[in-house]
């Protein structure tokens, strides 16, 4: 299932205002590592329907967003709960790492 793309406004609304527990992958089309990680998230998404949000931000379309998190590369998966930043995963991550991190966020 494909990830919902966020722009800066939607990011503000969904992540900060609604405070939904979520992950957001910052990626770009020309990054082959990103293109390998996105399918991992797409496969996981259905397992967390209604419990955890899966979103993505294209750093080329929304520069201000990655600058505001002073990111140093893509892909980066950022985790949020109740509008608060909960940490990130960088680079080529696998299913288990993402699942573990989601569990942490939901428990925390």
């Amino acid at each position, binding site marked *: 299932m494909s990830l919902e793309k966020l722009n800066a406004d939607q990011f503000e609304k969904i992540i900060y205002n609604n405070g939904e527990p979520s992950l957001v992958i910052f990626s770009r089309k*020309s*990054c*082959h590592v990103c*293109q390998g990680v996105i399918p991992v998230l797409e*496969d996981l998404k259905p397992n967390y329907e209604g419990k955890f949000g899966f979103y993505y931000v294209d*750093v080329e379309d929304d520069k201000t967003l990655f600058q505001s998190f002073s990111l140093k*590369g893509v892909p980066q998966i950022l985790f949020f709960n109740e509008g608060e930043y909960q940490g990130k995963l*960088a680079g080529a991550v696998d299913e288990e790492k993402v699942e573990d991190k989601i569990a942490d966020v939901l428990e925390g």
Partner: protein
Amino acid sequence: MGDITSTYDLIIVGGGPAGLTAAIYGGRAKLKTLVINKGTVGGLVNTTREIVNYPGYGQISGEDLMKDFKKHAESFGTDFLRDEVVRTDFSQEDKVITTKKGKVYSSKAVIIACGSEPRLLNIPGEKRLQGSGVAYCATCDAEFFEGEDVVVVGSGDQAIEEGMYITKFARKVTVIVLHDEGILDCNKVSAERAFQNPKMDFIWNSTLEEVQGQDNVEGVKIKNLKTGASTELACQGVFFFVGMVPSTHFLQESGIEIDKRGYIPVNELMETNLEGVYAVGDNRVKYLRQVVSAAGDGATAAVAAERYIEEMKAFNSNVLESDKQVLLLFFNAQDNSSLEFGTLLEEVNQELQERYKIVKVDLTTKKNLAQKYGIEKAPSVVVLDKGQEVKRLDCLTTIENLKSQLC
């Protein structure tokens, strides 16, 4: 192991230029072909901004070229699967492949085209700060270092060309080079351009010892190989371009011969040591690793695989499904006496009103078959009934004796 999800003639592991070319040839030869690829189709080529040496394309981005390759393969009916191969069983005639998503596929032939990945230096901080200033792909990450100081490790084509690309964003790029002053591993054109680039600095005779920083990269420790002295340099980013390693770890238990560095040795047909298994592109032992040579590999392997599958089918219908008993004659084309024996065997069979069907196998080219029946010398004859071995003939004998063995 689960049930077989799907059966193919040819499975190609990897969707870079080698795999996609194999897919084009496989599809065109009407083989039922599947490409299994874990990321985006195109592989590492996707990270190349500019390709200027692929024939027929004056200048094209890696991504666009790979899209053309994929479209071409799809036009011949090739299937694509986004998944990762985690296990293989190549011990039987039908090769079995298990993926990360738990699917199981079988095929008559397999082409390994899984390419390579950036080599890690395994120094402190390198892994911990990945994505926090440590990077391996300039196209992906250069932009994050706008106005900052970046260190590039390596002096090959990739290091120097990517380093120059990073200068578009960074304030300064410092290249750490193993060699004496003035010596870079890259091509001469790039070297000259790099030396003229006012944003590029070089530190010679040196290597990186450590990447420093708490949450983000704050600096590096550089070791001078001549003096042994360590110096620190503040920076916000480190790009490693210290070569590639083949992505063949998932084949450790497969029985495929792999050299010390992880590359798969093949012969000129791209055959590995295992029957029906081929290796192409960056993951094989070879001289030149370019899109054009990868494509050449893919074509060779697909044609070799097609012939192999055809021969196997022919053997199965000729020998295993034959109504008559079969005399499987192993001969050596370079050995006259074994050729003469073939003529003798045909004469005897004629006298017996063609009671048997004679199938000749060249021992020197059909090594797999010879191995299957444990044949070491020519001539040798195995008598088969519906594929089952009935007996072996004594070939060092007279025509009468041969005849009596067959009556």
